């Protein structure tokens, strides 16, 4: 379980997060919706310990990750896999080396055959075959990059997978595919997922619960139906733009 309690963060004069409280239950998918610049990525970087809060805390299974340093933080991060907005695959490595990277680092000395088997297994989870193993990131399409990034996030069998804008910049078919991938991954592997997005359609498709971020605060949170019924002016305006199109 992930608990974010009273989280505040400022960058110089810019008060980005102004007291965020939320709880992500184990094995569920929690989506954080918000417009660009609302602090979604900043919030996610606190969850994995890339940023430290000015006030408040982030607890993962009861452990305050914002207080950890050095080896303890390194160990805590091994519970996570993260899919970045631009995939963030290592340009200088093939698909195989990219996906194998977290496992090689976590279990130094792992045999090549076992490594290859684990990499192929995780690529299959995201519907990619062995033919991509020797390709370079520059040779992959946007959707394939996201899938390889998810395989890399899953290979060390994390308890929590974080998705940073997973559908941004993708065409509608690939977006739908990535949404399915998030849902399927949760079902197959039972991981806890946290997704940040401004894509309302995707958010309502994959979320068990969601929160809408506005001006560094949570404007509404709950099940998709509860959030849709919110009377917060920003939430109504934010959602109306999309629901009116439907």
């Amino acid at each position: 379980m992930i608990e974010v309690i009273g989280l505040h963060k400022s960058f110089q004069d810019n008060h980005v997060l102004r007291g965020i409280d939320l709880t992500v239950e184990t094995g569920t998918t929690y989506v954080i919706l918000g417009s660009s610049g609302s602090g979604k990525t900043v919030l996610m970087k606190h969850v994995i310990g890339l940023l430290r809060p000015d006030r408040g805390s982030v607890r993962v299974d009861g452990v305050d990750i914002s207080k950890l340093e050095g080896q303890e933080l390194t160990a805590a991060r091994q519970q996570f896999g993260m899919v970045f907005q631009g995939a963030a695959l290592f340009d200088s490595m093939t698909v195989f080396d990219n996906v194998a990277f977290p496992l090689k680092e976590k279990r130094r000395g792992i045999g090549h055959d076992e490594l290859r088997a684990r990499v192929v297994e995780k690529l299959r989870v995201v519907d990619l075959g062995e033919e991509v193993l020797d390709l370079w990131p520059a040779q992959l399409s946007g959707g394939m990059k996201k899938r390889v990034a998810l395989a890399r996030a899953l290979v060390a069998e994390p308890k929590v997978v974080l998705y940073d804008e997973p559908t941004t910049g993708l065409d509608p078919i690939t977006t739908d595919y990535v949404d399915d991938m998030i849902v399927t991954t949760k079902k197959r592997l039972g991981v806890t997922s946290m997704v940040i997005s401004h894509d309302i359609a995707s958010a309502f498709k994959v979320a068990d619960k969601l929160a809408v971020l506005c001006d560094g605060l949570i404007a509404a949170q709950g099940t998709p139906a509860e959030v849709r019924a919110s009377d917060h002016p920003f939430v109504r305006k934010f959602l109306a733009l999309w629901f009116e199109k439907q």
Partner: protein
Amino acid sequence: MSRFRQGIEDFGQMLLFTGETFAWLVRPPFRLELVLAQMAAIGVGSTFIVGVTGVFAGMVLALQGNYGMRQFGVQGFVGGTVAFTLARELSPVFTALMVTGRSGSAIATELGTMRVTEQIDAMETMAVNPIQFLVVPRVVASILMFPALTMLFSTVGYAGAYAVGVFVAQIAPGPFIEHTRTILDVPDILHGLFKGVIFGAVVSIITTWRGYAAAGGAKGVGEGTTRAVVMSSVAILVVNYVITLVSLRGQ
């Protein structure tokens, strides 16, 4: 004033980065394969440009030396003075400047691109310290390869000077080599190699830092690379002067 303050803050952050880099230098896991890869990229990859620069530097020194010394009838000293100048000053400085232009810019660009495309963040989320994985191998490889390239520069530079001195300027080979033995001592060679070690550390720290701290997309990477090359070049000349000053005071 704010630019001055920003400069001080930036320098302070670079010092912290340097401290962290040297702390990771002695902490396992040691990544020998990454160090070897960087030695190939920084060292082996720079041999051609360093060799060409060295040959022509030696050749022009011999030409100029012969022109000046001929007026006093002491052309035999050309070999010795060229070797002495190369070993103590020109080889380490020219080598460091050439490798900064070739490999230092590549290091800053590569790490800068990794920073702005979140590859460094990704590495951190995988519980891998980016300084240990990306920076330490480049620093170690530079510290080892800069003196090796300095040695190469001196060797081919002297060969170029010999070719021009003996075959073009018609200096007798006997005095050319004999005076080299008289003028050039082992401490002079070690002095140049020591400078190579220091320049390797300075250039690699500056270029990795400028890449590591890059921000703001492609423009930020470009600015970071430019600053890396300019700062490294200035640092090489300043540090070279300080080392020479200190070494001569001791004599």
